[in-house]
């Protein structure tokens, strides 16, 4: 079926498949590259002003550990914000679940027949289910009863703040069993065995690499490049626009180099932290979910125009419900990571984290109106905040100044984003 052109119309401008110019493509993707560039610039800045401390292997490992729970929650928050909602309860929920984990594992004395509940794995699963249930309950009110998410989750924030105080009876509970601590404090075992690059000797620091970490990084890089090349070839074969070859190469080389560099840094300390493995899998899954799965596509559709999405047959209520359930489960995971890292659950744990999470998503380019946002952006946004926290602490910047600077960075990021959009519109 082709439409005969009206006796009036001008012929449709047929676009031919062609390679865009290098700079044209860079400009078209400025938003994506800009954010990554900002992160790199911030890291270089602090590397200089912390006299080289920032890039020390131990510190890089620390940055990952310190921000893991923010990033885990930012993944769920991205879905929430893209759907046009907000979740203010995630900090309190993560604190509550951390407290629940502590009480299950060390606080409560179970009768022998229920002692299995204190097993770290069983307790972890219970915590995830409780988190998902909390999210689902809030999601139910938001999706099916149309109560604004701001209000439901504000109430949730107060409720779970109170509940964690209650079940901990106002005290800190810890320490956790060793297995549970591994979630945050552990590193993957070096099954291959260390590689000694520089042996210890008089006046020389030894340099021993965690070989398994390097192997995993190399495999990951090779796989990514392989899929990138395959996708590009397929698109080209079907006659679609592809980015210029030069840009393609530069982009992949830069990303591969960055990944290998960080892997090398981690490998020269204690290797891949367990939590980074968990995070990596989650990030990969959420990128896939938002970019390739129908569920993800429907979230963007309902965030962009709820009524149009509903009239296109999307079950908008059910989708919203699931989003909040996912957010709850991620908040639970984050709560456990946080508690495991501190090695105790405290009544104040998690408070205010929701603001860091929301800030990360907005710095990452999501729109407060819904329908716009990307997982990669949210992750980079979280790292921007994390690196600034870490760098400023090392520099000895006072906490009051740190807060102000972070506020300004959030404003500036959103401002430039909107400025660019308006200019291109």
């Amino acid at each position, binding site marked *: 079926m082709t439409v005969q052109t*009206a006796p009036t119309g001008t012929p449709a401008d047929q676009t031919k498949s062609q390679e865009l110019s290098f700079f044209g493509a860079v400009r078209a993707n400025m938003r994506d590259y800009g954010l990554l560039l900002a992160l790199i610039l911030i890291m270089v800045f602090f590397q200089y002003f912390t006299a080289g401390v920032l890039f020390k292997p131990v510190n890089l490992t620390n940055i990952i550990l310190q921000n893991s729970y923010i990033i885990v929650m930012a993944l769920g928050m991205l879905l929430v914000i893209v759907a046009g909602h907000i979740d203010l309860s995630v900090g309190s929920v993560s604190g509550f679940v951390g407290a629940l984990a502590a009480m299950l594992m060390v606080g409560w004395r179970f009768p022998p027949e229920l002692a299995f509940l204190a097993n770290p794995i069983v307790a972890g699963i219970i915590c995830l289910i409780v988190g998902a249930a909390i999210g689902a309950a809030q999601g139910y009110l938001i999706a099916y009863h149309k109560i604004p998410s701001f209000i439901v989750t504000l109430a949730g924030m107060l409720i779970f703040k109170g509940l964690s105080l209650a079940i901990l009876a106002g005290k800190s509970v810890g320490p956790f069993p060793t297995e549970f601590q591994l979630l945050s404090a552990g590193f993957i075992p070096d099954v291959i065995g260390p590689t000694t690059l520089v042996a210890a000797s008089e006046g020389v620091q030894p340099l021993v690499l965690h070989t398994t970490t390097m192997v995993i990084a190399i495999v990951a890089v090779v796989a990514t490049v392989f899929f990138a090349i395959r996708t590009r070839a397929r698109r080209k074969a079907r006659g679609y626009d592809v980015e210029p070859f030069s840009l393609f190469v530069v982009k992949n080389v830069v990303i591969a180099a960055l990944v290998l560099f960080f892997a090398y840094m981690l490998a020269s300390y204690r290797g891949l932290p367990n939590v980074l493995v968990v995070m990596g899998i989650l990030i990969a899954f959420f990128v896939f979910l938002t970019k390739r799965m*129908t569920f993800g596509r429907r979230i963007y559709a309902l965030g962009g125009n709820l009524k149009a999405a509903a*009239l296109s047959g999307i079950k908008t209520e059910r989708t919203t419900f699931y989003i909040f359930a996912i957010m709850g489960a991620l908040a639970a995971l984050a709560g456990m990571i946080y508690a495991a890292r501190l090695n105790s659950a405290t009544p104040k744990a998690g408070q205010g984290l929701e603001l860091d999470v929301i800030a990360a998503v907005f710095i990452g380019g999501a729109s407060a109106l819904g329908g716009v946002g990307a997982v990669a952006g949210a992750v980079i946004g979280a790292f921007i905040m994390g690196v600034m926290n870490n760098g400023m602490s090392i520099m000895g910047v006072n906490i009051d100044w740190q807060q102000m600077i972070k506020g300004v960075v959030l404003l500036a990021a959103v401002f430039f984003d909107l400025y660019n959009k308006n200019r291109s*519109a």
Partner: protein
Amino acid sequence: MTNTILEMRSITKTFPGVKALSDVNLDVREGEIHAICGENGAGKSTLMKVLSGVYPHGTYEGQIFYKGEEQQFRSIRDSEHKGIVIIHQELALVPLLSIAENIFLGNEQAKNGVIDWDETRDGARKLLSMVGLSEDPDTLVTNIGVGKQQLVEIAKALSKQVQLLILDEPTASLSEKDSQALLDLLMEFRKQGITSIIISHKLNEISRIADRVTVIRDGRTIETMENEEITEDRIITSMVGRSLDDRYPNREPKIGETILEVKNWSVYHPQHRDRQVIKNVDITLRKGEVVGIAGLMGSGRTEFAMSLFGKSWGQKITGEVFMHGQKIDTGTVGRAIRNGIAYATEDRKTFGLNLIDHIKNNTTIANLPGVSRWGVIDDLAELDVANDYRKKTNIRSSSVYQAVGNLSGGNQQKVVLSKWLYANPDVLILDEPTRGIDVGAKYEIYTIINQLAAQGKAILVISSEMPELLGITDRLYVMNEGRIVGEMPTSEASQEKIMRSIVRAEGKAS
């Protein structure tokens, strides 16, 4: 000899990648009604935005002379200060404020920041009487109809001492009667010496009231015609660049067996439980048939279609739907789609499209399973689908990655059609499929409708433009106050006959 009140010389406005206006000239004489015509995307609205300062001086090339002086407006405030007021297609009223508050919004009758309510009400009453609106100035704007809201906008313009009134598609969403009243008002203003510029697609209105008409096409001035030169044919010829012998493509219907039967369909108002809006409607659609529903605004046509499509409107819905003789469930939008019904809304921006997303994602959203397996989208297959439909429906865009919000109305409508074509329904309900789109795009949409019918689909068209219904359908239902009050083959129908069935029904009802 009348004076020229406004002269725009060699206006050129460039957006990244597009030249929206190139070397446009416009002169408007004092006290006339000057119409600007052109297809969607021709540059009419851009020109008015340049004039009113929405695009400030410096962002365009060329000069604007108003009352003999060159003007360099930097904002709407500047132009309003000189008595140039623009009323946009989408009204700029605050629904939950009163009429009086809206009229004086930004221009409050106040001393030292304290509002004088007596002054406000008196002033509003005076202005309302000038536009012939007898409403209490304390009534909330949300409680009056669109036609009256339009008049409130004009009253607001009058409060700013308007000398040059610009109306962008003022009658697009008005009923016949309200349009009439509005046009009369403009002619009244002409007597009082207020100059008006009116942008409209309704050529019959223009040829009736305009003193002069300027036609813009592809960002250029084509011609300005005067008095007796103004005819619908000539305007169309100028607008499209070629004469349109026929506004509707030829149709050779091949009608087959009955596909859809709706029996005894009744619907109540979503807020008022006792108000029955659709009353025992029966309709049938046959294979390859294009059927129209004619009726006045508010006759319940859209409500009928939306209630049929997944109970998207109303409550206490009763009745039966048969598809190919089988009773089907249309209780949710998803089930209605799976059972072969699609509904393209009358309001594509609010209900039809995700404007911030691009053509590709809008095309596949109603049928994502078609491009995915186990919930994973095959992105290349999806791209193929989007490109395929872009070609089929002749969407003019740089690629399928162009945001739908940046397309012209006609192209947006084609995206809506693409979406529903890809969902592959047996029955396609099109609600006002050509509202607010230009003549050329209308023709293309009619062609698509014909092709769909030729493929054996049944099409139900709801339209307020009777000539359109008469031009493209095979059979017509007439709806009035939620009832089907007439049915006729289009070959035997005429505007008079349709109106007669409506009037007869009204007579019976009262």
